[in-house]
């Protein structure tokens, strides 16, 4: 049985920015343990000699020419904004710092 505690789930929820309820934390730690047990099987066959596949097709070097194309109008860009001011997206006070 995979060992995933309620605290682990709380940490993951913090990383994923979801304010999970206590109920959900309990529930999810149980569910995740079961799911992780099921999916951990992948380790049985993932040998050193097997290269990982990140893209299903072997494409490479797909580029666009450096040319300016029309942008959205500011009205379109801001059309979904929950709040706006001075043609900018208005967001609540930011506590963290830029990285």
């Amino acid at each position, binding site marked *: 049985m995979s060992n995933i505690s309620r605290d682990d789930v709380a940490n993951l929820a913090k990383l994923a920015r979801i304010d999970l309820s206590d109920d959900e934390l309990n529930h999810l730690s149980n569910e995740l343990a079961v799911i992780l047990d099921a999916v951990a099987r992948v380790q049985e066959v993932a040998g050193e000699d097997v290269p990982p596949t990140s893209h299903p097709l072997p494409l490479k070097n797909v580029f666009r020419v450096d040319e300016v194309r029309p942008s*959205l109008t500011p009205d379109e860009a801001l059309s979904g904004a929950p709040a706006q001011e001075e043609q900018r997206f208005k967001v609540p006070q930011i506590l963290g710092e830029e990285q």
Partner: protein
Amino acid sequence: MALSYDDVIAKYEPVLGLEVHVELGTESKMFCGCNTVFGAAPNTQTCPVCLGLPGSLPVVNAKAIEYTIAIGLALNCSIAPYSRFARKNYFYPDMPKNFQTSQYDEPICVNGYLDVTIETDEGPKEFRIEIERVHMEEDTGKSLHMGGATGRIHGADYSLLDYNRAGIPLVEIVTKVVTGTGKYAPEVARAYVSELRDILRGLGVSDVKMEQGSLRCDANVSLRLIGADKLGTRSETKNVNSLRSVERAVRGEMIRHAELLNKSERVIQETRHFHEDTGLTTPGRSKEQAEDYRYFPEPDLVPVAPTNELIEKIRASLPEKPSVRRKKLQEAWQVPDKEMAAMINADVLDLVEETVKLGADPTRARSWWLGEIARIANEKAVAASELSINSKDVAEIVALIVQGELTDKLARQVVEGVINGEGRPAEIIEKRGIKVVSDDSALMAAIEKAIAAQPDVAEKVRGGHVPAAGALIGAVMKETKGQADAAKVRELLLKHLGQG
């Protein structure tokens, strides 16, 4: 009582790590066709891709790849035959997708170096800065912090976001650990950024304007006791926005660390913010607990595998290195080492070169940029290039001096006028009514007046004591309010007194 720098270096060895972010000067953004011009109205240069709207997908700008390879080659890096983009996952409102498309374990350029030379007590000395990697990523949007008193993030009531900058191609150049610089660490750091900037400018891949943020430096500094092997805890000073600040930030952090270490206090691993006004840093985010960025290969982009042909084509088109160029200029201009170093230090070499290209003689061009203009820049605590005088203005002023239309003294007034924003040289000369008095009869009247006022001096000159003429020339200059050409006055005066 603050430690002196000498105390610090007597006991500790500084170790540096420098991360430089450069905004590439492509026409369009890294992953979409939005314009990259600086200073546009907010959110006018955005599209579904750079706003991270649901469903949008990135496509790599070919030019950005070429520019990055050129940077790698100029920094003596190996170009990876295969590299990938990765997602760096973290939440921040200025980052529309809440992940940054960057490169992680497979950067496009690795293992290079850059040699920089600084003046030391023992004369010029070269330091090799090893480059760990050069990789591509995208810039974030910009936030305006509103309310509160300071306009800073802390204490703001809310923020306003403009995503014009989001998605502009960035190249990050990361050094390996830099050791062995000893007391010259601040100068080496500065010289590295300066040399890097010259290289980037020479490549034409960026406008490298530190004050506009198109070149930003993060300086990692740590100290260890001289002779110790183990590295000390580092701090990372972010976004240091001028060459001078790079030097100040490194020196300041060295002193701050040493003070802590001397008190047996711990240096905290954290980011620090540099303040131009005080030269000090203040703490930012603690990095004690490593952020888990959950990097993984970007599934929306395919690998970059530059062909040898492309790499060689870019290599063949690289301009000469700044050090080679400097040597050539020095020979062409016949400038002594010390003067050359002074120009580099004052960051006016490019300006002098442009001025010379516009027809000024190298000596005059140099003495204006390094003299009067550098003095004013220094007073205002800005770079000479940021003043409103340009190489064209200086070339024009020099030409007027050569033609005898301006004296040095008058030229200084013109320079001052241009810097004050009164207009271009011709306009200032016109407006201020500056002109050299070259009319012989007007000069002769002044000369006769001077002789009449000081007959004994005139007699000495007539008697062959030519140096005495200085007093008379001075009187004439005073009479003409400095608008006469002193050489011309001397010529006429001596002739008049039978010594011509």
